[in-house]
């Protein structure tokens, strides 16, 4: 079988540029994504981990057609996919947003919210049938159909948002920090549901988060994003046990010590500075301004991805295969 058949979603060289007004008369390009490539297998979860401004949400917006992209190739199950004119395949990809309070229409009942994406595709009876299926799947009470979002807790609201995303039976679920607005118990509940979905419905998903331990819990593979560039990709164990990029290592070392059962390091990370502005990023490696091992070449040439194992890829001049 060809490579594309093994992967449900393949994204190659995706670039997105926003125009940002920097002064009254001037607009400058902001390169949110600079040639991002990754793939997601069937019934696999890929976590995209990065800090604010790294472009994580832009990836999801570009794939789902909410933002147009400059260039790049997206394919689903080997078929080229164009989000911009994807009315026919609108049901293939669903997006769950970070904040259920703003993503759910407060004037509609839960039943109406969840069945809305079906439009007129299905008769009313079959709509009710799928609605009940999806409510059971998300462990939501069937009485919720006639309630309004304000009558639900945060965790319940986010499950309604996930139910709405699943009603069209998509092959790919895009999750944009779905648990960051929830407390610990609700977060766990949503995570358990996502794990069940993967095994029961074979849904592939991209889980965007800034929380590496959470990524480790939900995803098989992790991609680390910095200023619009994927700096390292690997299985969850490769990322936690074989981290090679200085930025991936910094993320691991930033985790509160208690979140790591056995930690090999006693010294603390001393990282200085912050993520630079994505406007006018100079040539070379995007991480060099904060990198402890930056060399002369880092400010001249952007590092090419190096394959460390069948699944682990890193882009750093200091790391060789």
């Amino acid at each position, binding site marked *: 079988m060809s490579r594309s058949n093994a992967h449900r979603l393949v994204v190659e060289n995706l670039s997105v540029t926003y125009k940002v007004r920097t002064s009254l008369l001037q607009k400058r390009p902001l390169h949110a994504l600079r040639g991002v490539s990754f793939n997601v297998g069937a019934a696999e979860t890929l976590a995209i981990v990065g800090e604010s401004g790294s472009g994580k949400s832009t990836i999801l917006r570009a794939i789902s057609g909410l933002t147009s992209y400059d260039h790049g190739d997206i394919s689903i199950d080997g078929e080229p996919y164009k989000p911009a004119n994807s009315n026919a395949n609108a049901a293939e990809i669903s997006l769950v947003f970070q904040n259920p309070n703003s993503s759910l229409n407060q004037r509609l009942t839960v039943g109406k919210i969840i069945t809305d994406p079906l439009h007129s595709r299905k008769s009313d009876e079959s709509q009710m049938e799928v609605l009940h299926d999806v409510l059971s799947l998300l462990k939501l009470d069937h009485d919720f159909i006639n309630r309004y979002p304000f009558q639900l807790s945060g965790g319940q609201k986010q499950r309604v948002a996930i139910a709405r995303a699943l009603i069209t039976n998509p092959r790919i679920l895009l999750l944009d920090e779905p648990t960051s607005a929830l407390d610990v*118990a609700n977060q766990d509940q949503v995570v358990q549901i996502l794990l069940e979905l993967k095994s029961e419905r074979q849904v592939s998903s991209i889980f965007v988060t800034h929380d590496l331990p959470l990524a480790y819990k939900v995803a098989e593979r992790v991609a680390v994003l910095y200023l619009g560039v994927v700096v390292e990709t690997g299985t969850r164990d490769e990322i936690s046990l074989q981290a090679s990029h200085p930025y991936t290592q910094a993320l691991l070392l930033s985790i509160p010590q208690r979140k790591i059962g056995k930690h090999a390091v006693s010294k603390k990370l*001393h*990282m200085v500075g912050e993520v630079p502005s994505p406007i006018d990023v100079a040539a070379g490696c995007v991480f060099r301004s904060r990198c402890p091992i930056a060399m002369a070449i880092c400010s001249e040439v952007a590092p090419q991805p190096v394959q460390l194992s069948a699944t682990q890829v890193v882009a750093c001049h200091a790391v060789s295969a």
Partner: protein
Amino acid sequence: MMLLPTSGVEPTLKVSNLSVAYRGGGSAPAVKDVNLDLAPGEILGIVGESGSGKSTLCMALAGLLNKTQCSITGDLTIGGRSVTISDPEDQTWLDIRGSKIGYIFQDAHAALNPLLTVQQILVQPQTCRGIPMDEAKERASQVLHSVEIPDVPRRLRQYPHELSGGMKQRVVIAAALVSHPEVLIADEPTTALDVTLQSQIIQLLQRIQLETELSIIFISHNIDLVADLSQRILVMQFGQIIEEGPTDRVLNSPEADYTKYLLEFVPRIETIGFHRGVEHWHNHE
């Protein structure tokens, strides 16, 4: 439930039977019968989920609640002085708030006045206490150095919107420290920040505590983060303290079911390691 960390030492802050009820709320009080002591130089962590009353508790301790919106009862002593906790506009508060007790807010952007420069933000609270302008300016640049802000002279002239999120939070910390407080209350100071900045701010608070020997109350919903920083932990649920003890004891043998549950559901990584054992950050030093 009360536990004195070091018996015989006069606590920097002591509150007994503190209750806060929001008016018109109708239902249960936001904070109910809370007793706590803060020893000099201690870092006390308060953990609880949203709505547990941890922010209300700390705002009451700093006299930041509005008495027309809630009723506050209890006895509070800060630095040996008794404070009228029920009335945040009382003269005792005016002497203490901002000088003996400093507050770090969660949302740095909302906490800084957008119309003032960083220097004005840091100088104003001093001059209104009668400190001469020159001395206040000197102290402002000192405190910016101590919160590890680079290029201080330029930063002093900037407005909050010109600063990044991490920088703004450092300015908020500087504003809390500028009058040499004895108690610092940090209400989720890193929740709005990225993980790499979070660890920078935690290390900064630890360093400041060691240097100035002030006492810190650190609030977070993240029990692991609190554990990294504090010597003693309070767990709050429904406005009450349901568990209290030294950090190691609370984490290793939690008594309350709720604490067990908080510890159980937090996602963790079992162990971390590096490709070929090369860890770029330490080799560099």
